[in-house]
């Protein structure tokens, strides 16, 4: 029996983005011995790329705003399939979480009277996003990172968890490897918080970084936890499209929030043709009204450029498909002709720099070319709204890897607030669970040996190149499980995924275990393939169109199917699907949805 480096903790948090950091801070504050384990260096997680802001009904710009309106916007944006209790908690607690960040050193942009400034974003009735120019995520992760460091939390950087360890039904710890040395490390801990983010690297065009391989989704699935809403994948409407090198890189919704508009190749503001009935009453139907809305929200309705992301992404998809796109297959996003250069540079400094340096486009002088990019996973681990506990005792999940808050489609800005609100709750939930535990679960040494053997398999000389398998997977998911789906294509995807899984079993890597990206990818492929299968199967199961899930063969939303969530779980080698009925919403909340 090999001896591996072993650590004992009360709570192990996997992932060090906003949710992981916030969870670790809370768990540690609650007295739990806490470890933070992350695949990259501290401070490099995906949160760093978030641009637009944190949605919180502070009411600093519009005193009319409050948690009830935020709740309503979130539910309607999610096409009412959200977990209403999570949406309620989120809307109620987000303001205090933002103020707490300020207490820890974050510096948000200010209003004229010195309070936190808020900006407009898609689907939010009022200007609601606390922000720092267009680099809010950087401010947030740095603030949390520094706060965590000062709390003395143990951080295991560039350390990847490959399996969760269990004792019977309960979590007993996690198995990981150091990327630097390739050596294994065992965490013995009764509570694990997954905060691993999303799955975008399974898709060809994505705003996500290499880390987003669905690790937490897969770890939870393999540990027997329920995954929910896996059919709902968000394509952000505005990713860069040219040059190919930058295809998919995010262009913040803040461009539209700050006055930018979408145009097709005829110069038409096409979004006016795509206003869905659900949002017709609150959306401007003339350019004049839309333009006045930026400064007069009392008398004007919101511009359709700021409809929820699913609506805008589908509209752009249709425009380009029908031949009204730009030379590089996107649409135009123009702020140059709408706002002066100083304003643009002040409000959107990193967009200005990104386009100038990577695409030779000066956004203060010319329009950007943009198109949909795989951006966010609404689906994930099914959790208890209060504690973020999964269906496996000792396993918690927060942030993008969790499911429920965003329903079928996430509103911009609700992600960063999600990380703070539910990161905190998960950290607290995990610490309380660990603290209340009697005898601790024990790590099973046979399972450890299996984990080690599994992790080393790519060195046994299989002939498949992991990079080629990932590229084929991305092609498959992009073409067959993308923005618009059909039964035939989803079935073909499942066949292709089976072949890819087989190939991944034969993935081989050259070299040794020390900092070997080919090996790391070969291991990440397991997660990407498992998650991709869940997405395709859930997408096949939901025979309607709703939010981030559009079926060409079932183009309408079906009210009957709003009554359940699709839940995926692994039993033996099989992935099983069930419909889980949604809990009825209390009347007081239901009334909020109907308020205008």
């Amino acid at each position, binding site marked *: 029996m090999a001896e591996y480096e072993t650590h004992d903790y009360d709570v192990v948090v996997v992932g060090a983005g906003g949710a992981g950091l916030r969870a670790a801070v809370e768990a540690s504050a609650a007295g739990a011995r806490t470890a933070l384990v992350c695949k*990259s260096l501290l401070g490099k997680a*995906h949160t760093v790329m978030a641009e637009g802001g944190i949605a919180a009904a502070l009411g600093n710009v519009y005193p009319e705003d409050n948690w009830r309106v935020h709740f309503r916007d979130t539910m309607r944006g999610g096409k009412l399939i959200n977990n209403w209790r999570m949406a309620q908690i989120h809307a109620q607690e987000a303001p205090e979480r933002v103020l707490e960040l300020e207490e820890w*050193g974050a510096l948000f942009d200010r209003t004229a009277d010195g309070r936190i400034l808020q900006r407009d974003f898609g689907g939010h009735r009022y200007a609601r996003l606390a922000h720092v120019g267009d680099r809010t995520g950087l401010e947030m992760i740095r603030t949390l990172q520094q706060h965590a460091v000062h709390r003395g939390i143990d951080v295991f950087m560039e350390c990847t968890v490959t399996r969760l360890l269990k004792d019977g039904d309960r979590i007993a710890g996690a198995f990981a490897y150091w990327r630097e040395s390739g050596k294994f490390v065992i965490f013995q801990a009764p509570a694990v918080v997954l905060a691993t983010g999303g799955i975008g690297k399974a898709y060809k065009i994505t705003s996500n970084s290499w880390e987003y391989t669905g690790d937490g989704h897969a770890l939870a699935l393999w540990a027997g936890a329920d995954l929910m809403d896996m059919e709902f994948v968000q394509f952000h409407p505005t990713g860069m499209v040219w040059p190919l090198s930058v295809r998919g890189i995010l262009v913040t919704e803040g461009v539209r929030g700050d006055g930018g508009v979408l145009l097709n190749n005829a110069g038409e503001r096409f979004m006016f043709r795509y206003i869905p009935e659900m949002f017709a009453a609150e959306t401007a139907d003339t350019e004049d009204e839309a333009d006045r809305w930026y400064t007069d929200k009392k008398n004007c309705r919101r511009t359709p450029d700021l409809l929820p992301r699913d609506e805008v992404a589908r509209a752009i998809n249709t425009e380009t498909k029908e031949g009204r796109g730009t030379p590089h297959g996107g649409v135009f996003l123009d702020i140059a002709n709408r706002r002066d250069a100083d304003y643009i540079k002040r409000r959107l400094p*990193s967009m200005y720099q990104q386009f100038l340096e990577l695409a030779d486009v000066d956004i203060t002088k010319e329009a950007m070319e943009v198109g949909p990019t795989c951006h966010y996973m609404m689906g994930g681990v099914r959790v208890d709204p209060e504690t973020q506990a999964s269906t496996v005792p000792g396993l918690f999940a927060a942030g993008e890897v969790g499911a429920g808050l965003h329903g079928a489609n996430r509103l911009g800005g609700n992600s960063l607030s999600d990380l703070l609100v539910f990161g905190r709750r998960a950290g607290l939930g995990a610490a309380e669970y660990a603290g209340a535990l009697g005898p601790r679960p024990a790590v099973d040494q046979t399972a450890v040996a299996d984990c080690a053997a599994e992790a080393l398999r790519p060195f046994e000389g299989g002939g498949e190149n992991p990079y080629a398998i990932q590229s084929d997977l991305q092609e498959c998911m992009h073409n067959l499980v993308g923005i618009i789906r059909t039964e035939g294509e989803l079935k073909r995807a499942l066949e292709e995924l089976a072949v890819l899984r087989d190939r991944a079993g034969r993935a081989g890597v050259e070299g040794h275990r020390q900092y070997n990206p080919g090996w790391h990818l070969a291991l990440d492929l397991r997660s990407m393939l498992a998650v991709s299968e869940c997405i395709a199967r859930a997408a096949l199961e939901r025979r309607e169109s709703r939010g981030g899930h559009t079926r060409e063969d079932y183009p309408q939303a079906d009210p009957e199917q709003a009554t359940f969530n699709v839940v995926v779980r692994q039993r033996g080698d099989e992935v099983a699907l069930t419909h889980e009925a949604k809990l009825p919403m209390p009347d007081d909340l239901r009334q909020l949805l109907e308020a205008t």
Partner: protein
Amino acid sequence: MTTPVTLRVWRGDATGGDFREFQVAAEEGEVILDVVHRLQATQAGDLAVRWNCKAGKCGSCSAEINGLPRLMCMTRMNVFEPGQPITLNPLKTFPVIRDLVTDVSFNYEMAKQVPAFKPRPRGPDGTHRMRQEDVDRVQEFHKCIECFLCQTVCHVIRDHPENKPAFAGPRLFVRYAALEMHPLDTNDRRQLLQDRMGLGMCNITKCCTEVCPEGIHITDNAIIPLKERVVDLRYDPLWKTFRRVFRLRDPAAVPGP
């Protein structure tokens, strides 16, 4: 349009290594990180390289490109002389782990020693009121993406690794400046900067400012004002008298928690 590129990539580990030459294709509009990824995917699957966002926002992919410290994701291929080989080697100031990946833990250790942010109490209405003008100058420092290019180029530690234990480096000076100029902070880190963080060792050659991908005026806006503050602390005659009269301890003598 595809063009062939010759990459000379340093490959090796802590025990040594050397440059290997590779022929790789580059497509129009690409950055050097794209070419490195293509090399990885087709010829050198185990080539060690750090990266995350590929959009200049995370600061992971720092390397020395033709001898200049830069972010690989923000270095366009069209800045290079066509036909000339491009050399890539790891950041010189930090110990090599493997290939282009270095051990940057020095920076994280130095960050642990920064005395924490300590805000004044909230105002009577339960909020912190701050003017945008006061926030602006600190927001410049908060733009730092921790790519550590300023650290690697700083000759105090680049040429003299023995200085590392006593020199925080430009990145950390930016962090100290952000805290010292934060409108809400009440901690005082001046004595620490002078005594243990080596602020005095910086002789303001501005190498750090030149390589900053975020355009932070590290020397002018962070380091020089910090130096002035430290000087004020030592030589402010008014403060000295005040201290003597009230028998106060030097507030900067205690670095805080």
